């Protein structure tokens, strides 16, 4: 399997080349094209580990209920093109067995079927953080595709980093976070317009997106024409 990412980054898409026997999983609805020998199977989970509960769990991450699995049928190589909802960059993340990634649901585009996807509930901090109730946990060995509104920035954390919730894409499991206030007090935090932030500690890698989809929506909304009945 190899993946071509379109250059430029502004309106990225991924072209996944599959060899016979290989499978790739994506959000339902992310496919833009596929060669004729690709079979598309729509399920609620990857590798049969999902079921209805897996689908519901994914809904809580802000992701789709169904996943599409792509596979070649006739023993010849095939390809499938995937595109995210937002304009922005798509990046390959190589997940290794010794380090799982946690992915904000809306940033997940696809994954090799060798990876296991499940949901990690964030409880109250997920609700408070203004993000979704759960994060998608990606473990195993293989390629994960993440997308962004805008461009992606990857950095190493060794110590502490504060992130506005809307900018989170994914982080390695070695990092932990708590929901925190940005200013000195809660009133200050509310006034600052940042709302809650995530305070990451530990050692690991984090991927952030340059723009915040919620804030983008808030700015775009008032400029849209009224919906016609």
């Amino acid at each position, binding site marked *: 399997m190899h993946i071509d990412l379109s250059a430029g980054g502004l309106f990225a898409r991924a072209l996944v080349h599959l060899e016979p026997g290989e499978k790739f999983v994506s959000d339902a609805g992310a496919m833009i094209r596929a060669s004729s020998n690709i079979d598309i199977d729509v399920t609620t989970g990857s590798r049969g580990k999902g079921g209805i509960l897996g689908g519901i769990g994914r809904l809580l991450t802000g992701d789709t209920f169904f996943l599409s699995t792509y596979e070649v049928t006739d023993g010849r190589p095939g390809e499938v093109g995937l595109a995210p909802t937002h304009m922005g960059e798509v990046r390959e993340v190589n997940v290794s067995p010794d380090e799982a990634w946690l992915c904000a649901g809306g940033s997940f585009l696809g994954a090799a079927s060798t990876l296991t996807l499940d949901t990690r509930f964030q409880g109250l901090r997920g609700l408070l953080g203004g993000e979704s109730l759960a994060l998608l946990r990606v473990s195993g060995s293989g390629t994960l595709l993440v997308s962004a509104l805008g461009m992606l920035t990857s950095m190493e954390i060794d110590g502490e980093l504060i992130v506005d919730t809307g900018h989170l894409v994914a982080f390695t499991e070695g990092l932990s976070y708590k929901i925190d206030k940005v200013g000195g007090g809660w009133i200050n935090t509310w006034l600052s317009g*940042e709302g809650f932030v995530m305070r990451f500690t530990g050692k690991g890698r984090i991927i952030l997106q*340059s723009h915040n989809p919620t804030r983008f929506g*808030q700015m775009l909304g008032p400029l849209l024409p009224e919906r016609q009945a």
Partner: protein
Amino acid sequence: MNHEILCGPSFSVLEVTLAAGERIVSEAGAMAWMDGNVKSETTTRGGVLAGLKRAVFSGETFFQNTYEADGGPARIAFAPGVSGEIVPWQLQGEDLLLQRGAYLASTEGIRCESRSEGLKGLFAQGLFVLRATGTGTIFGDAENFSTACSMSTRLCIVV
């Protein structure tokens, strides 16, 4: 203070590295990520009236945040709400007029207030624009959709 425009030009993000004790001001809600040793403080900068004028007339935020590197150097990143360029502009005592909503961040020596353009403004950008004065660097963004285009065409220096 060092600054770097990341992810540009289409999705610019401003990343500033502050030395210990240095401060930077931004519009509310613009912080994207920062080191753990950054302290923040939210004020109207210039009083309630200045904040109100800025918010109501110039499409900016009522409150502004001041960030300070506490006890060591720190970096902090600011992102505008929409995609576009970020343009740094040096001021040495002169005035800079900005389009509504174009303010992202500035060094501490710069004050921002709303200024009436008079009736002629009605036919151009709106009745009020934002006026920045002082000494330091101001960072503007192409945040306002209605005239979304590169900042350089929307900045002008008033003598």
